[in-house]
């Protein structure tokens, strides 16, 4: 496996995520624009113009290029595993100077910023071992404004799914325009405190409009989306019908005494890309 080639493809995947908005999100923003008027429509028009400007100029859509996040699903028999971590880190350093990205890693105690988007535990890499010999790396660079609108509710199980609905809707509506709506609300239900938030983040990898394979979960996704959109917060909190483009839910079994609900919000600039590497070193960026 050619290491330079892996790094090069990872850099181009970061560039793609930062500069080209996925078509499912563009479609959803265009549809929202048709349904809005006044200040809300001005916002959506500016977003779509921004998408064009970023793609045409190959420049980051948002100046907050985020914390670089990689969700790795690696086959147990994938031959390139041993050097993958260092390749991801090298790719982040190169992307920071080449694209360029804003230096976004700050030491929490000293305030020092190394300037290359690399630091303790950052880039954030999540490792999941799967069957087979292929490696799939999902990129989800995420800005601070929307990440600040994440939340954890350790609800008493007695409140039931109704309580989950209240928690999610009240929280997201309370954030108003802060997370750059209309975005995607990721919800993780069950597991523990950490797992519910992790599931919420993983749910953001799904395209806008995709539904959970289980019917009752899919119905809850649509119900929450419609409830949030009844709030009237609208694009960028300026009032309107579109407060979120979608709600995605993932769940885990829970402890009898716990009902954790994790919320991770992704802004309208829902940046995603995927790198697939097969056992022979053939690489694809999508």
């Amino acid at each position, binding site marked *: 496996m050619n290491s330079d080639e892996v790094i090069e493809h990872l850099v181009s995947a970061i560039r793609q995520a930062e500069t080209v908005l996925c078509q499912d999100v563009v479609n959803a923003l265009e549809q929202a624009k048709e349904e809005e008027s006044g200040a809300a429509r*001005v916002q959506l028009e*500016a977003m779509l113009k*921004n998408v064009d*400007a970023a793609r045409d100029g190959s420049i980051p859509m*948002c100046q907050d290029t985020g914390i670089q996040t990689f969700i790795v699903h690696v086959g147990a028999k994938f031959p390139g595993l041993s050097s993958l971590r260092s390749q991801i880190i090298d790719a982040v350093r190169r992307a920071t100077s080449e694209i*360029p990205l804003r230096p976004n890693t700050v030491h929490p105690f000293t305030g020092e910023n190394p300037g290359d988007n690399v630091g303790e535990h950052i880039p954030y890499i999540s490792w999941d071992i799967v069957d087979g010999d292929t490696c799939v790396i999902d990129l989800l660079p995420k800005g601070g404004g929307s990440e600040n609108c994440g939340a954890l509710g350790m609800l008493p199980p007695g409140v039931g799914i109704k309580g989950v609905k209240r928690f999610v809707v*009240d929280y997201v509506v309370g954030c108003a325009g802060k997370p750059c709506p209309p975005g995607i609300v990721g919800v993780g239900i069950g597991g523990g405190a950490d797992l519910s938030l992790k599931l919420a983040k993983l749910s953001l990898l799904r395209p806008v409009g995709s539904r959970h394979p289980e019917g009752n979960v899919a119905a809850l996704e649509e119900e929450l989306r419609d409830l949030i959109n009844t709030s*009237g917060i609208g694009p960028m909190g300026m*009032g309107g019908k579109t407060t979120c483009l979608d709600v995605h839910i993932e769940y885990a079994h829970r402890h009898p005494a716990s009902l954790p609900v994790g919320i991770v919000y992704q802004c309208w600039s829902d940046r995603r890309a995927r790198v697939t590497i097969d056992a022979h070193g053939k690489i694809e960026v999508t």
Partner: protein
Amino acid sequence: MERILTTPISELQARGLHVGDVIYITGTIFTARDEAHLMMLEHGEPLPIDGLAVYHCGPVVQKKDDKWRIVSAGPTTSARMEIFEDRFLEKFPVRVIIGKGGMGENTLAALHKVGAVYTHYTGGAGALAARAISEVSDVYWLDKLGMPEAVWVLSVEEFGPLTVTMDAHGESLYDTVGKTVSENMKTIHDRIERST
């Protein structure tokens, strides 16, 4: 209504704007986030800023051939500046604030007092903003504050669309939206209660 304002913007022009107006700015604007606000309040303005617009923004900037170039420069969340924006407005005669998410009642009162407006620029529209910035004319406190927090002085052409969301007449779009949302939340909670 839509209009293009050229800096320096007068107090009269600012007082002539109302919530819902969409403006574009041509001329000079400068960035200031949390740290730059504190620096200016302590040390004074680094450039003459009468009639300019202050932009809540931490841009991505690149140096090429010894010249700074803005890569991406969308707005940051203005609410963080609420703790000192009223003092800032009373000390420095800017006429337009550009940011996102809106600000609170202290800023609203100061806008009325000094004759200025708060305008909302689309969050995340960093590439669109960069296209309207023709030049970086200066930068202050870069070494001390770093790239996102430094004061970047920018020449802009038809920078916008900027929606006036808080005006000098005490009106705030956020208050109006907030009232509508509170009403709607009653319906939403009813629907949740009735759901299975």
